[in-house]
């Protein structure tokens, strides 16, 4: 029977692998137009640049390009692929992703990842924990660096998490008609800048960005997005390898990984708190909870909505401070906090927040955006010579 605890040996084993490179197969062999469209759609992104395969040809990219956070579908940018500590659950706690080049339909992206940090911690949620970071490098078929992603997780013993559940007393009231109207209204007013350039010169520190809204969150939006919205929860790369035979074979090959369904006696996915309410509560979460990279994508969507076809999201970072559960609605907002010029790039920094209907900021973060400028020497996205 596998040890389901955080042990000195388990931590030492992880630490011994710092500095090791791993190249796993990408979750996708080809970047296809269908995948780009579905990735955008399942995150609620309706920007024609991403969902309309014909649109990109008329932009500076000259091609159908993917949302910047698409690279998560090549290799999920959390840290669970590092493995170790069998039976000890992993909660995704944050991301920091930099984007250097567009991903176009037809590209081939190859990922490499390595452990970045292993650290003991403790917290109110689940007592003793281990924090782990992972770095993923994504390159294209020309060996050009496309993106670098950091994913952070906390490793927590499941039973401990439940005992110390600080969320156990959260019982939300149903939405009122007025609250629903407020949500529909925000959907109706969501703007995509699109072809009209947002010049750096016209942006001021203090400018407000958004809001955009996502919710009320449904289980199918978490569950049936598996291959598209990001977060390769089911599939290759350390999760399960497929349905039926593939799944049971993997559970047999990885003792301690599966979690048996008590009602049926059948092994099922150990992360099914992402779609099964009773399992979520068993590990101390007050309902089905989202795959956190969705919120990284929402921050990115607000930025790409705002930046327009001629802007470029250079970096997005965030911390997952609260779970986002079934029924939650999230408003993503931003504020310009800094402007500067770096080489040819006209940059702005946006402070980002993700407030739910309880007023909690579940996902504080920020982004760097490169904007077009009236300066004729400014960097424009898709320009192969454009680097710092």
């Amino acid at each position: 029977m596998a040890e389901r605890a955080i042990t000195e040996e388990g931590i030492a084993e992880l630490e011994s692998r710092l500095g090791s490179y791993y190249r796993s197969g990408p979750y996708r062999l080809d970047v296809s137009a269908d995948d780009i469209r579905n990735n955008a759609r399942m995150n609620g992104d309706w920007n024609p640049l991403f969902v309309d395969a014909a649109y990109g040809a008329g932009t500076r990219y000259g091609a159908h390009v993917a949302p910047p956070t698409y690279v998560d579908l090549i290799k999920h940018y959390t840290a669970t692929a590092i493995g170790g500590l069998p039976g000890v659950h992993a909660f995704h706690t944050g991301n920091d992703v930099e984007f250097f080049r567009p991903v176009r339909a037809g590209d081939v992206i190859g990922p490499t990842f390595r452990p970045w940090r292993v650290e003991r911690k403790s917290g109110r949620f689940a007592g003793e924990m281990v924090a782990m970071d992972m770095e993923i490098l994504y390159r294209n078929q020309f060996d050009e660096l496309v993106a670098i992603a950091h994913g952070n997780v906390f490793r927590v013993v499941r039973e401990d998490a439940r005992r110390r559940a600080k969320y156990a007393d959260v019982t939300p009231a149903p939405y009122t008609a007025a609250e629903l109207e407020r949500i529909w209204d925000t959907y109706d007013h969501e703007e995509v800048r699109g072809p009209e350039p947002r010049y750096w010169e016209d942006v001021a520190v203090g400018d407000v960005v958004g809001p955009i809204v996502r919710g009320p969150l449904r289980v199918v939006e978490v569950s049936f997005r598996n291959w598209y919205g990001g977060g390769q929860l089911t599939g290759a790369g350390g999760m399960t390898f497929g349905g039926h035979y593939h799944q049971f074979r993997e559970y047999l090959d990885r003792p301690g990984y599966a979690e048996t369904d008590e009602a049926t006696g059948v092994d099922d996915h150990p992360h099914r708190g992402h779609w099964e309410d009773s399992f979520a509560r068993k590990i101390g979460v007050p309902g089905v909870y989202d795959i956190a990279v969705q919120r990284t994508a929402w921050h990115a969507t607000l930025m790409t909505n705002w930046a327009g076809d001629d802007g470029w999201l250079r970096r997005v970072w965030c911390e997952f401070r609260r779970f986002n559960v079934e029924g939650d609605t999230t408003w993503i907002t931003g504020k310009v906090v800094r402007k500067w010029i770096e080489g040819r790039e006209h940059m702005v920094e946006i402070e980002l927040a993700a407030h739910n209907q309880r007023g909690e900021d579940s996902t504080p973060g920020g982004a760097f955006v490169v904007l077009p400028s009236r300066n004729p020497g400014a960097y424009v996205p898709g320009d192969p010579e454009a680097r710092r």
Partner: protein
Amino acid sequence: MSATFAPPQTRDYPGLTEASIAHARELIGVPLRRRPHYTVATRDVLLRWAKALGSRNPLYADLSHGTLHTPWAALVAHPTSIFGFDDTFVAPRLAGIHALYAGVSIEWQRQVRAGDTLHADAVLTGVEERDGRFCGPMVLQTGEVRYVDGRGQPVAVARPRILRTPRDPARRLGKYDGLTRHHYEPEEMARILKAYEDEEVRGDVPRYLEDVHEGDRLSPIVKGPLTTEDMNFFVSEVSETRAFREFIAHARRHPADVYWHEDKGMPDSWDASLLLDKVAREFGFPCAHDTGLQRVSWMEMLVTNWMGDLAMLRKLDVRLHAPFLHADTAWLTGTVTGTGVTDRRAHATLALDCANQRGETVASGTAVVELPARSFEPLQPGLVVA
């Protein structure tokens, strides 16, 4: 959007009326708007379908086998992967009336290979009034979905059957109320795992017409116990699930088709019943269940496992007889009912059965497979002649 979109005052779902049935009949023959999940059969799409089915057949699951060792000279698609290009749910109108997949008849004209583009057109072909123990009066909608390739050449034709079943009578009649998720003892699971290990794939050993005889039994396959993982894999391959803004916009345009969570006061889509018990119970199923398409795909796997790399599945006809619930297990068996050569095509016909862990038939069907022959008369399977 004008009217307020909020939970309705009552939970009574619409019933069938003469007017609503006539309204549905108006669409017969009219091209329908579809939401294809895929437009191109990339290698990823085909490999994922094999994973979703739990398939290990190298022709469909291995990147190089079909390309290097078969006349198809490519990674070949499982025949039922066409569902990713149109899910064959042809059930327009009758808003607020539940829709249950009841079966489909599919004919294939061509193999699908990695790189192919597929487009489907769909029409409603019939609206018939029926009656049954599940919900009393119901309606059977039949359809026709035509899949063509990038050259406009026919690839397959599917003729689905969808039952429209009013929710309130189904709940009142409670036909399936006694069913629950099955609990498996270790010995039962061991038997299932052994069946997975014993599964046979004919693969690169040709199954010649001359060696196939009426009464031959297909090597059986097992699928299950059905888990949430299985649901996620499969539905993610066939469904153009609406999310966030797209879902809310659709729900506000079609409020009669919305499921409302009473505890949360939030709208949802009915496909949530594929995961959530409480949504399933709303229309008379005891708990979360399969899509129906899964059993059709498993029947296909039973046949493609048997037929070998050189053969081609020409026809598959499946009828669904009962719900298939989470934790159910399907035992699929088949028998050869005849062989012959017609218009230079060598073929075998098969009778197929799908029983659950209680021994009840949950699906049955027939298939026609084009086989290679030792005799020089018949054509090679799949070869298109003018």
